[in-house]
């Protein structure tokens, strides 16, 4: 087991390195120089000396390979440097936004679990009945509906219902306050984006629960259990569901990792100051350093989630340790 963990851990290195190379090159391929953008953003011309000094400060006058090595060195030593746009430490820029994105991701995951496990189970157990068709339609619709549109509809719904019920239109707060400072205020802001993304997320997870459970239900030990005359509910709960959970956990894990950086559009709808919005802004501002660090953060979360899932698999199913 230990050898497998080490081997699997080492496998993360090429992925992370490759991601670093890719995002570094992508950023450099974007036409336009950050110094120029920062200095000429309001129009007019920029003095050449100002431009030269700015470039030197950001290290953009160095050869590409040297810039890349600095970037890698920073990653390895966890020294993330400064945002090229605001010139502030990236840790400071990310701090609050990370908190927010993490909370939305967790809340969306909880929403997804609460919806997916019961729906997926019932749909698998009652396969090809009207309830199964309903669940399948519900999930496919969840995957089809853009979460930003759902977000717009939620806001519209809140406006209309609050106006009808209380006489005044109520809006979720627009400024983020950490959960422990004011839980009510915090939740009244973040519950909506969590629902909007949670729906799509739960749709994916429901499908996975359903298909994993169907597969397990066909396995021998479940048939045996059934044949032994075990009460149906017990079979599902104790035997089938537990074994079907693994692929569901995988999907949840991967989706969670993507939510951390991929909420780009939903954050726009709800005006959330999260990592996704920061990502769009830093790409548009050509903030190389910030974008690189953000992408590496998302990729690292993704790679780590995958790692945990794989280890979990290996732990539960010893065959994997040897075959892979």
């Amino acid at each position, binding site marked *: 087991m230990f050898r497998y963990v080490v081997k699997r851990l080492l496998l993360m290195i090429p992925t992370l390195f490759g991601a670093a190379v890719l995002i570094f090159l992508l950023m450099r391929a974007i036409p336009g120089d950050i110094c120029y953008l920062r200095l000429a953003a309001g129009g007019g011309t920029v003095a050449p000396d100002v431009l030269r000094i700015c470039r030197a400060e950001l290290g953009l006058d160095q050869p590409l390979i040297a810039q890349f090595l600095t970037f890698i060195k920073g990653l390895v030593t966890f020294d993330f440097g400064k945002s090229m746009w605001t010139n502030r430490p990236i840790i400071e820029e990310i701090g609050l936004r990370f908190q927010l994105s993490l909370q939305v991701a967790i809340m969306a995951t909880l929403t997804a679990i609460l919806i997916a496990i019961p729906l997926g189970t019932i749909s698998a157990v009652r396969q090809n009945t009207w309830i199964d068709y309903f669940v399948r339609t519900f999930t*496919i619709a969840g995957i089809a*509906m853009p979460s930003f*549109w759902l977000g717009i509809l939620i806001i519209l719904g809140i406006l209309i219902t609050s106006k009808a019920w209380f006489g005044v239109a109520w809006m979720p707060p627009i400024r983020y306050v950490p959960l422990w400072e004011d839980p009510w205020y915090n939740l009244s802001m973040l519950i909506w984006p969590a629902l909007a993304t949670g729906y799509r997320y739960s749709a994916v997870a429901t499908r996975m629960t359903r298909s994993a459970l169907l597969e397990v239900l066909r396995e021998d030990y479940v048939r045996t259990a059934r044949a032994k005359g075990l009460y149906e509910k017990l079979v599902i709960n104790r035997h089938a569901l537990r074994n079907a959970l693994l692929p569901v956990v995988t999907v949840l894990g991967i989706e969670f990792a993507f939510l951390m950086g991929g909420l*780009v559009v939903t954050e726009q709808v709800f005006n959330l100051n999260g990592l996704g919005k920061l990502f769009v802004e830093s790409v548009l501002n050509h903030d190389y350093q910030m974008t690189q660090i953000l992408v590496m953060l998302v990729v690292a979360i993704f*790679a780590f989630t995958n790692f945990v899932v794989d280890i979990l698999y290996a732990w539960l199913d010893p065959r994997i340790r040897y075959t892979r």
Partner: protein
Amino acid sequence: MASTETASATVIEDIPRRPTILATLGAFSRENPLGACGGFIVIVMIVMAFFAPWLTSYDPTANDFGAMLAPPDGDHFLGTDQFGRDLLSRIIYGARTALLVGFVSSFVGCFLGLILGVTSAYFGGRFDLLFQRVMDVFMAFPLIILALAVVAIFGTGVQNVIIAITIPVIPRAARIVRASALAIREMPYVDAARANGFSHSRIIFRHMMPNVMAPFLIILTAQVGQAILIEASLSYLGLGVQEPIPAWGLMLRGGAQEYAESAPWVAIFPGLAITLAVFGFNLFGDALRDWLDPKMKT
């Protein structure tokens, strides 16, 4: 090249008797009522895109300040937007944009993925290992992030949106195709082809590729819906298709939210169009998967 005729001829002989297309369709819909429903939506969309000028008398880009934000009525079935443009007509023409982006990007992306995936599986060994690592890297990037970076490089507009969506599709298709191709590589007929001294490209293109068509078609249909969603997201962010081109995601931008309360039709119908279209493609794709690949049936 000339000797391939015999190969394909034998393949045709193997098929007992070709059922009529209509009968196949009938069987398909009886077996997959949901899939048939999806197929119907897809066909409606294609018809809308092709016959747009005959389906509506309004120019989708013509401003009409006499009918700004008009509610749905006999003149404008779905109402108008803030420029007085007919929403129905914009949605119908929007199907063109959605289908163009959806089909071109997923077809090109899946096709490149097909070539890469099969090639990688065929050669195996170090090449395959390296290829797998590269795919890992791409897969670790959230789709929208990769698409955004590509848009930042090439700029906005329909063409660039297609490029931006195509690139993330490639590794996703390649990975799935590779998995099926690995199994085919071990098949006797591939060994035989190799023993006959056929060139690598010939084996890849003539022998392996036709046999991974099922997973290819499955991923292709699945990606069309996905591509339409990403195009809508990019356009909504203002980084995709630009005004005045009719595009569903773009129609939800700006005005749709500003006027949502007093003119909800502006916010509702384009979103409904996106959802229905993706819904249709997904249902159809699911059914196609069940039908083409019974092993994967759930």
